[in-house]
């Protein structure tokens, strides 16, 4: 099983990145203009009260010691308190993970469902009209602003046809899924344009590969060659493409959650920015960054698992 050795060694390489993430989020909050103690207590605080707060939060300590305390608290799962919601940041974030995670997963599945037939049509007609049509459609799609696309889908499906809820999030499973259809379709339509382009070129390559030629030589019909040999082989690079685009995908969900008033982490982030709830901004940014690192790691494992040729 030496092919899977990287599962043990790779996390060691993550350490500098995780260290960097913690430094950047630490610096972000330190850069807030004004005195943090005054921000907490307000402008009419007495000097002794300010000094007490500074001592309580360690703000009178040297900066490297403050960073050390920050790490220590982080290790204990303490990310500070939300000013707006009056609770600790970590439990606050954990209640918001579910909608975001479901939205991301549903978007990925939907975007593959959209991109697969599009790229198949393009790859099987390279250089001909369907190929050009798919290329123009996907070039248009790259420029679709997710916040606008979401609104247009609401107009079409919720206002005109009245089949899906406008916004919000349900309580029962079916209700939640109904509320997730339009948001995930919005993200998926944007994501599928990127996927289509790379899937198409992967399929064009795979159509020329020895595997495809050998299958044809055995007398396999072209359709079976395509779906049995070409498609599985071209899906492997797509896993990595999805992992590379995870940051972009998360950015999309942040905007889309605000459009559809989905109570996820993205909406939490945007509201926190407006209410200057810096601890929440810090916590969400860090959680998203760690999720990105984790997703890339998972993608590596999946790639090795599905493709015996890959060695990491």
């Amino acid at each position, binding site marked *: 099983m030496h092919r899977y050795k990287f599962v043990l060694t790779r996390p060691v390489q993550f350490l500098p990145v995780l260290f960097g993430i913690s430094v950047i989020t630490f610096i972000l909050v330190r850069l807030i*203009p004004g005195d943090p103690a005054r921000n907490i207590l307000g402008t009419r605080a007495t000097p002794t009260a300010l000094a007490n707060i500074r001592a309580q939060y360690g703000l009178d300590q040297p900066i490297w010691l403050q960073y050390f305390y920050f790490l220590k608290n982080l290790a204990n799962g303490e990310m500070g308190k939300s000013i707006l919601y009056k609770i600790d940041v970590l439990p606050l974030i954990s209640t918001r993970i579910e909608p975001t995670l479901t939205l991301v997963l549903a978007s990925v599945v939907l975007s593959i469902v959209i991109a697969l037939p599009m790229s198949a049509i393009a790859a099987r007609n390279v250089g001909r009209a369907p190929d050009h049509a798919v290329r123009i459609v996907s070039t248009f799609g790259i420029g679709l602003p997710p916040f606008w696309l979401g609104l247009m889908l609401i107009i079409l499906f919720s206002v005109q046809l009245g089949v899906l809820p406008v916004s919000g999030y349900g309580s029962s499973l079916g209700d939640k899924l109904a509320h997730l259809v339009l948001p995930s379709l919005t993200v998926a339509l944007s994501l599928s344009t990127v996927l289509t382009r790379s899937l198409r070129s992967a399929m064009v390559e795979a159509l020329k590969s020895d595997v495809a030629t050998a299958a044809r030589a055995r007398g396999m019909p072209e359709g079976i060659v395509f779906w049995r040999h070409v498609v599985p082989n071209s899906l492997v690079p797509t896993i990595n493409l999805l992992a590379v685009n995870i940051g972009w995908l998360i950015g999309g969900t942040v905007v889309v959650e605000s459009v559809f008033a989905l109570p996820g982490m993205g909406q939490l982030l945007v509201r926190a920015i407006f209410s200057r709830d810096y601890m929440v901004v810090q916590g969400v940014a860090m959680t998203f960054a760690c999720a990105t690192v984790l997703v890339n790691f998972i993608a590596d494992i999946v790639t090795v698992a599905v493709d015996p040729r890959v060695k990491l």
Partner: protein
Amino acid sequence: MSAGLALPAAPAWRRFAGRRLTLVVGIAILTFFLFLSVAGPLVAPYDPIFQDAAARLQPPSLAHLLGTDNFGRDILSRVIWGAQIDLQIAVIGVLFPFLIGTTVGTIAGFFGGIIDAVFMRLVDIILAFPFLVLMLSIIAILGPGLGSFYIAMALVGWVSYARLIRAQMLVLKGSDYAVAAVSLGFSRTRIMFRHLLPNAIAGSIVFSMSDATLVLLSGAAVSYLGLGVQPPVAEWGVMVAEGQSFITTAWWIALFPGLSIVCLAFGFSMLGDALGELLGVHE
């Protein structure tokens, strides 16, 4: 010019146009928006922030081709004035990351060693953050506004350019002409920026076009969220946000500014594709 000379020119042009249709379409779209952003005040039929209480929420008509919003402002005029801001977002939002990233990538790739290691770890860390999340966090610190957006963009966006240029530099610094330039005793600055960089930059120029699409969408998204361009300035993202409350009754308020974003983005993508083909760069 004689007819004999003019004849073969036509098929040649048609061949060029056929193969380079994407280039023509891209340039045409961008020129159109550039024209709108320069001549906007002259072309726009109304003042973009004039509120006409008598003409609130009018659907598209001859008087107001794209309708009016809830303040009675003319959507067409606002869309035309918006071209100025959104084109500026795309250009400035690409320019600073391009300059910073190209400089960092050139230096890191050329010198290698500790400088390279430090910069590339920084790139890894910035890339670990979802792009928009890091941008929004920086804007949260700096306060909402277009200036904050540009600063955030410069701080986050340079990494892609640095990576592209660095990879090219690593290859090019071993090339014969680089070695020749060294043996001629040219300074390192001269070799880096006069000899290597011009050969390394094609990929970044092509990428900057698809990046312009991304920057435009981010700028509009940030403004839509209320953290970028502030009302009553006519910016397409802001206009979509303003139209959101009226999507059940007045769909035209949100529809047209969004379509403008799609068109401008399409122009950048087409030009990027065409440049990629012309310069022989594939992303």
